[in-house]
């Protein structure tokens, strides 16, 4: 096949090739691999080069990666709990304002045993994730439009950056006036928190795309939506993921703020409402327990959802060592 490939068409193209070849040989010039007979030599030369210049990346075994990622934070948390317990033993504050880790643990256990904690956590997480998904569905197309359409960019970019810094709790009073104490209030606040952050993340992701990818897309014939789908969005993805992560953080924070403020039987009992219940009952152990529960959910979603996603995207693009 290679021999046929290099003799057939070239002979058809020009009869001078053979003559030139023999002239070269007679002139003592080293025969190079361009000669038809040496095609196999070029092949092995090339494969040798390929072998020498490719780097095989070895990944560390799973247990070592887990150990190096799980152990340090667990130790840090253990240390914090220890300091907390020492402060309680030292009686820096009366017990009804600073509960011991054990008190908080039993308060959480109590909520767990009657199922309140699980129900509240599930309600909040499902609200948070649903709100986040809607925010993604709005934020990414919005970011794409603002990044790619000149007039929209000029008009909306500063506004979105501004909205990003506005604490979304500020929307709660207005939302209660508009939607009364309904789930719509909570979702509105979550969206106002998450959408600007996701949109801004998408915009900066698109802005950071190396111009060469746009040129490649145009040379390959991708325009408009096809360019957005095949070139722009995938190229912006790593930076976009940062925006999504931040969007989730904002969604979760806004949700807790809304749940804390908006109390109504119609809204059910989420983690925020449970926290407010603890305050009403002056049950400081429950208050601490709920703060920890809210923190844990935030960390869990980040570690179980976003971090693996981010790492796999970066690793596939060779942007991550190990």
């Amino acid at each position, binding site marked *: 096949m290679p021999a046929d*490939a290099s003799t057939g068409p070239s002979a058809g193209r020009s009869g001078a090739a053979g003559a*030139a070849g023999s002239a070269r040989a007679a002139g003592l010039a080293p025969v*190079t691999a*361009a000669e038809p007979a040496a*095609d196999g030599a070029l092949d092995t030369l090339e494969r040798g080069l390929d072998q020498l210049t*490719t780097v095989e*990346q070895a990944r560390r075994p799973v247990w070592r990666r887990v150990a190096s990622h799980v152990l340090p934070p667990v130790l840090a948390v253990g240390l914090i709990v220890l300091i907390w317990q020492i402060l309680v033993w030292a009686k820096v504050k009366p017990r009804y304002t600073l509960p011991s880790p054990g008190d908080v643990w039993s308060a959480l256990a109590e909520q767990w045993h009657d199922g309140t904690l699980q129900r509240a956590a599930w309600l909040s997480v499902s609200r948070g994730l649903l709100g986040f998904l809607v925010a993604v569905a709005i934020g990414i197309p919005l970011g794409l439009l603002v990044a790619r359409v000149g007039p929209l960019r000029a008009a909306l970019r500063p506004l979105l950056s501004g909205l990003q810094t506005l604490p979304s709790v500020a929307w709660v009073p207005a939302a209660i006036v508009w939607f009364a104490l309904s789930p719509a209030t909570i979702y509105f606040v979550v969206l106002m928190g998450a959408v600007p952050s996701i949109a801004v993340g998408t915009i900066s992701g698109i802005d950071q795309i190396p111009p060469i990818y746009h040129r490649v897309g145009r040379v390959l014939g*991708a325009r408009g939506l096809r360019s957005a789908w095949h070139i722009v969005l995938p190229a912006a*993805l790593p930076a976009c993921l940062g925006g999504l992560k931040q969007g989730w953080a904002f969604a979760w924070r806004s949700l807790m703020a809304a749940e804390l403020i908006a109390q109504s039987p119609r809204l059910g009992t989420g983690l925020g409402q449970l926290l407010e219940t603890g305050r009403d009952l002056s049950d400081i152990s429950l208050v601490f327990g709920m703060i920890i529960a809210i923190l844990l959910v935030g960390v869990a979603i980040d570690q179980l959802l976003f971090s693996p996603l981010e790492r796999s995207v970066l690793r*596939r693009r060779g942007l991550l060592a190990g």
Partner: protein
Amino acid sequence: MTAVQQQIEVAPTGVKVAAGSPAVAVEHLGKRYGRGPAVLEDVSLSVAPGEFVCLIGASGCGKSTLLSLLAGLDAPTAGSVAVAGGRAALMFQEPALLPWLTAGGNVELALRLRGVPRSERRAEAADLLRLVRLDGAAGLRPHQLSGGMRQRVALARALAQRSQVLLMDEPFAALDAITRDVLHEELARVWRETGVSVVFVTHNVHEAVRLGQRVVLMSSRPGRIIREWDVAPEGPRGIDALDVAAVAGEITDELRAEIRRHAR
């Protein structure tokens, strides 16, 4: 055999056209950005179907601008550009592979954007990778490939567009000497196998003489075509072919004279 078989002065358009319409027809092309100085001025160039033309010139001669115009990435301010089949494939100095796709995925994307149905894409991408001798690399990501392998994937991707014209913008400039050497031979072989017309931009005179059937020298600021050499009607030669050095010497002298004109 004389070192330079034939010399042509600035060719009026149409002079070099073989039978049939040219693969690339550039007529009185001019380009300036805004109110700036002309980057290209009255450039006329015709490339025959299947011809391998090397464009050479010092920095600022508008070689890359000319390729952008040929690729349709930019519009001329004067004159006209026509490419057979309407669209040319373009290879850049950097491989510019999309890092979120595998080597095979990069080739398949070009096929997809060309409108090749899904069922045929994988097989055709495999054929193209085999053509550049990367049959085992379809599943690898760009960062797992060496510089030379990336450029070969980029070549396969450019060929996947199945344009009649392949534009190359100093594609091997960033490679080490041995890899560049191998890729010269690889490109020569692919050119023979596919019959594609190539417009190859470089500032390396030896590279131009080795690869091109015709070498076109451009002046700088503004870019104009000042001279052409028919160096090797039979196509790309080995780098050690005897007459390469002689022709390269002559072109280098001319290039230096052109650069000296800019000294003040």
